[in-house]
Structures are given as structure tokens and as C-alpha cells.
């Protein structure tokens, strides 16, 4: 049956159910059991924000606390995935991925291609993304575009608990490396989540709201900001359609184009920095594929081209707001 679950609990349940279903699924990362020296009892942390709490008690040594060496354990997870396991590695903050780019970009992403399709790399790398956590420039970035740029990686960024569970199960069952991005600000947000295992396929956007005047394309936390904006705009007689991409690679261009063909207006929202962002990618794709449908220039609403500020006042300004999204939609409506 379905019940309300937070995104954090939905991710925990997905890991639990896949570990129960498939003995080759293992989980590794910094503090994901209980921190150094902890026996993993009830008081154990279960990761920096407690996402994996309780799993050690059920699945024991299939969860492994790793040293603070991302280059080592991400490499180990990728290697294990080529040898028959399905590791889920938690990298804490996506920002830390920099120290293991070779393992991810040059190894995991290339194996299938360079070994003529004979090698599979069913590894899932989970990491927290996004600002708003008062954690400054090195723990708050939305680096989704970096990974989306690399062929051979799949990139997932759910906006709600239902999608998080289904997409994580799909990620674990997928035979390619998946970068699974969890927005910290969404961990507590709840939706109806079935108790049973289920999947949400890659490359299928979710139409969160239907509307005929403008299309807002977004993902992750921005889906919620876009929904707020759409609510405000509905009061002004502007009906927005919201397309939640759910996965950035593969990306559901068809749904985006189809929506813009109906509305004629496009606003791309991305918490990432603007240059070479998902927003820029969508704007370019639509301009090429559906130019004749556009009634106005596509608008992009993104973070500015700066690091995430530590000042809370500036950090709040940094993240695209519902007001900024609404203003962008209004701009497309201007005669």
C-alpha cells in the first residue's frame, strides 16, 4: 500500500529492498554504517544525514564504511561493478567528485564503449547536491551539467520521494554507471510512496502540471519553485505547464518539444551555473527542434556565474526563486 514517506526514507527503502532482492547489491561510503569504530547499532549515523540508517542492522557486511578517500573507494566500487557486484557508493557531496574524476569520467564512463560492449559497469554513485544548506561553496554546488556532459554516464535528479525510490531502484538495476543526485533541501519532503518495489524509467519526464501558455522545464528542487511560480501566474491568468526532467541523461527531449509545441513559450530553470547548463542545453535543443513553435525567445533562470556564497542572505539570492521564474514567464508573455 502507499503511504506518505519523506525522500530520505524513500531512498533508504529503495536500498533496503534492492539489497533484499539482489545479493550482489552492496553499499559503501563515508560513515554510511556508523562512522569509524561504531558497531552500527541503533545510534549509528547511517551517513552524514542518516539516509542509510538502519541498513547495517539488516544487511550487515554488505554495507562498508570507507576511508576518507573518494578516489580509492569510488574506484573500488567501479571495479567491483565490472566483476559482478552492483555497488551503490555514497559520495556525500557531489562537490567532492573532483578528486575521483578519472575513475568516473575516464574509466566507468568508457568501459562499455572501449571494450566493444563486452564490459558492463552497473555502479550507482549517490551524492547530495544543491544550495540552501548554509554549507558554503564546496558543499552546495549543482554540478549536474558536468556529469551530463560525459557520454556513458546516466544522470538522475529526483524532485520528490516517489520518483526518488523508483529512480534509485532503476539506477541499481541499470547496467551502466549512474550519478544519482539527491537535493539536500528535499530530504524531508513527503509524497505518497508505494511499499512495494517499483521502477521509474530513465528518459521519461514527468508532466507535473498541465498548462497552455508557457512551458517551464526544470528538475530537482526547482520543480517546487516552478510550481510556486505557476500557482502565482495562474492567478494572473497565465497557465504554465511544468516538465520535471527527472533524468538529465538520458533526457526526454520529446516531452519538452511536445509541450513547447502546445504552449509556444519556454522557460528553462536550473539551479546550476548558467554556462553550459541543463537550461542552456534545453533552450538550444528547443530552438533547433521547435523554432517555428516559439512565440518568444526562450528564457533561462539559473544561479549566477559565481560560487555558492556563504552569506545566508546572498545564498538565498543565489538560488533561483519562484519570483524569478514567474518574471521569466511574464517576459515570454509580453507582446
Amino acid at each position, binding site marked *: 500500500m502507499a503511504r506518505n514517506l519523506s525522500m530520505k526514507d524513500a531512498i533508504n527503502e529503495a536500498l533496503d529492498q534492492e539489497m533484499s532482492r539482489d545479493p550482489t547489491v552492496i553499499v559503501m561510503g563515508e560513515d554510511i554504517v556508523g562512522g569509524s569504530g561504531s558497531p552500527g547499532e541503533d545510534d549509528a549515523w547511517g551517513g552524514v544525514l542518516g539516509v542509510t540508517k538502519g541498513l547495517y542492522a539488516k544487511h550487515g557486511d554488505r554495507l562498508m564504511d570507507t576511508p576518507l578517500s573518494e578516489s580509492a573507494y569510488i574506484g573500488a566500487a567501479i571495479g567491483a561493478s565490472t566483476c559482478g557486484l552492483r555497488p551503490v557508493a555514497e559520495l556525500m557531496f557531489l562537490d567532492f567528485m573532483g578528486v575521483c574524476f578519472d575513475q568516473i569520467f575516464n574509466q566507468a564512463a568508457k568501459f562499455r564503449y572501449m571494450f566493444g560492449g563486452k564490459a558492463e559497469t552497473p555502479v550507482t554513485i549517490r551524492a547530495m547536491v544543491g544550495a540552501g544548506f548554509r554549507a558554503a561553496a564546496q558543499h552546495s554546488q549543482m554540478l549536474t551539467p558536468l556529469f551530463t556532459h560525459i557520454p556513458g554516464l546516466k544522470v538522475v535528479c529526483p524532485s520528490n520521494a516517489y520518483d526518488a525510490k523508483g529512480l534509485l531502484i532503476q539506477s541499481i538495476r541499470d547496467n551502466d554507471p549512474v550519478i544519482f543526485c539527491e537535493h539536500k533541501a528535499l530530504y524531508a519532503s513527503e509524497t505518497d510512496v508505494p511499499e*512495494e518495489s517499483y521502477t521509474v524509467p530513465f528518459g*521519461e519526464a514527468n508532466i507535473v502540471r498541465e498548462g497552455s501558455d508557457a512551458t517551464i522545464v526544470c528538475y530537482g528542487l526547482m520543480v517546487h519553485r516552478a510550481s510556486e511560480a505557476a500557482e502565482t501566474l495562474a492567478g494572473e491568468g497565465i497557465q504554465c505547464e511544468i516538465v520535471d526532467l527527472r533524468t538529465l541523461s538520458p533526457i526526454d527531449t520529446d516531452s519538452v518539444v511536445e509541450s513547447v509545441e502546445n504552449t509556444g513559450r519556454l522557460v528553462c530553470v536550473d539551479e546550476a551555473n548558467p554556462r553550459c547548463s541543463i537550461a542552456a542545453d534545453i533552450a538550444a535543443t528547443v530552438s533547433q527542434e521547435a523554432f517555428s513553435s516559439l512565440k518568444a525567445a526562450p528564457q533561462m533562470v539559473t544561479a549566477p556565474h559565481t560560487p555558492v556564497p556563504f552569506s545566508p542572505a546572498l545564498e538565498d539570492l543565489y538560488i533561483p526563486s519562484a519570483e524569478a521564474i514567474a518574471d521569466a514567464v511574464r517576459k515570454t508573455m509580453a507582446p
Partner: protein
Amino acid sequence: MSEANITPVLMPKWGLSMSEGVLVDWLVDEGAEINVGDEIMEVETDKIASAVEAADPGVLRRRVGDAGETYPVRALLGVLAPPEVSDDDIDAYIAAYEVPVDEDDDEGAAAAYEFAETAVGRLRYASRGDDGPALVLIHGFGGDLDNWLFNIDALAERARVYAFDLPGHGQSVKAIEDPGLAGLASALQAFLDTVELDSAHLVGHSMGAAVAARLACDAPERVQSLTLIAAAGLGPEINADYIDGFVGAESRRELKPVLFNLFADSELVNRSMVDDLLKYKRIDGVQEALSSLAAELFPGGTQSAQLAADIDASGLNTLVIWGSGDAVIPAAHAQALGNAAIEIIDGAGHMVQMEKASAVNALILEHIG
């Protein structure tokens, strides 16, 4: 006061989770003479949009609800009264009306469903109504108990109504031990056992009608009467595009056109319906359950079960209801039964119990007596 002559038109409650709805538009003007079954307004919830049929006759004296606005369930949307009732009395009635508080609402939608541990596994069900004859509603292929959302409350006014999810469906166990008609009929029997019904009036839709009929043949002592709606098991063919399309669809884009087959009015297929069905299809075990049922019961656009002769031989009191525009199973299959009452309803498709709910509810209540 002539309040006794005043009949309220209320926001309906469709389904167990509905708490509010949008009055999309009025379909009749103030002053119009309303007959039972007339479509008087269009209402939309987050699950479905449909016309509301009048449950009572009278003159629509006042539209209280505004088109485009959202109202809670049982909010006063209009007032029916004979011409002799004064405007002052109607104003007073409107002023005094309060939306009744629903005790169930606090517990939310989850409390509206129950689970029965049966011999075939865990089955989800809903029960409504305190007295009257026992009535069990059995949904069709790929459906669930919410297929009865326009029926269950209306039927519960005169019956104890049970609606459950068959194995492989809704929120019931997904594994079907015996994925054929016999297996589903034994699941129905197991459900009757668990909720302690020695016998019941069975109302089945599509594949669920074949399940009901099969139980009536296997265990006639458990069945008081049959109502077969858009029934499987009575004719040779079924729309393969629908069955195979439903089983095979993996995306919103693939599923939506398949669902158009279900309704005479394709506007009823909205985003929420498509999303809910995709969520169901993506649960572990569902694809296997649907594929094996389809292969067993509906191979290549044919129907493997032929029950008409057995139903006739059972001598059971049988009512057959069909939408004239059924694009999944042709309404002509109703003629296979020699001893049944047959009602063909115009302007409805395969989901006739949703599209013409008032008419179907009235027929069922009349049938079970």
C-alpha cells in the same frame, strides 16, 4: 417553512480519497426542469472529470456554486425546488446550509481501504454500507477497486458493498499463483471467505464479470445473483489493440491512446489517470501478472473462456449491462445469454459504470431487489 421541498445539489464524493472538486461548468440554466439522470454540471477532481447526473428531480432554482471554483465534498452547489417555494425560503436554506463534517476525513484516504489476508495472499478492499444484501464488485483486467468510484457509495445506500483488488492488481498481492479464470475465481472465493460472506450478489466488470460468472458456475451456493457489465467470457473476440497495448505500454505517450479505447468520451482520459496506471504497471510483478493473464485469457484478440452456456444452465438471476459504444468487447456479446435481462446504455464505452454511473447504479439496485 417549506424546506422539505428543497433539495440540495452537492459536490459529489467520487472515490475514497476525494476531498474537494472543481465545478468546471454548469450544464443547465437556472429555472430548468431537471429529471433524474440529467447531466447538470461538470466536475473535475485531481483524478477524473465527469458530468454529474441529477439524483433528484425538480426545478434548478439557484446556482450557488460558480464555474471554475473549487469546493469541498458535499458543499452546496445548487438548489432544486418546486416553483411554489419562495425565493426567501431558498435564500434562507442557502444561508443555513453547512457542509457536513465527515468523521472519516481526519483519518484520510488510507483508512478508507482495508487489507484482507486470504488464502491467495493479501487483498486490498473497501467496504461501504451497514445493512441490506451483500454486494461484491469485481473490476476488470488492469483495473482496481477505484473503477467503482462512482458506484460504491450510491450502491451502499441500499446494500453492504465490498470492492476489492484482484491478485496482480491495484494494491493487492502481485503474484498470481494460477493466472487464469479459475485462479481469479478462487481468489474471489478466498475474499468471500475472509470477509465472512457465505454468499453475495456479484457485480463484475469485463474480466471481473467472467470471474464472477466462473465462481457462479464453480460454487453456485456462494452467488445470489450476477450482474455482468461489459463482460468477458461471452463471445469469441476482444480488442487486441487494447489488451496488448495496455500490457506493452511503457510510457505516458504509449499508454494514453490505448486508454481512449475504454471510454466513449476520450476527454475522460486525463494525465492523472495515465500517471496512476503507469505507477501501477511499474510495480514489481505487475508486468508478469498482466502478461500471463493476457496470454491465458485473451490470446491474440480472442477470448479463451466461453461461459454463456454455463451461466444459462446455472439458472442464476442474471443482468447484463453494456455500453453501446464499447470498443473493447462488443455489446453484441450480451446476446449470447438466453435467460438474462439485457440493458444496453447509449453514449457509453467499456467503462459504462463510470460514464453512466447513475443508470448503472439504478439497474444494479433494481436487480438485487
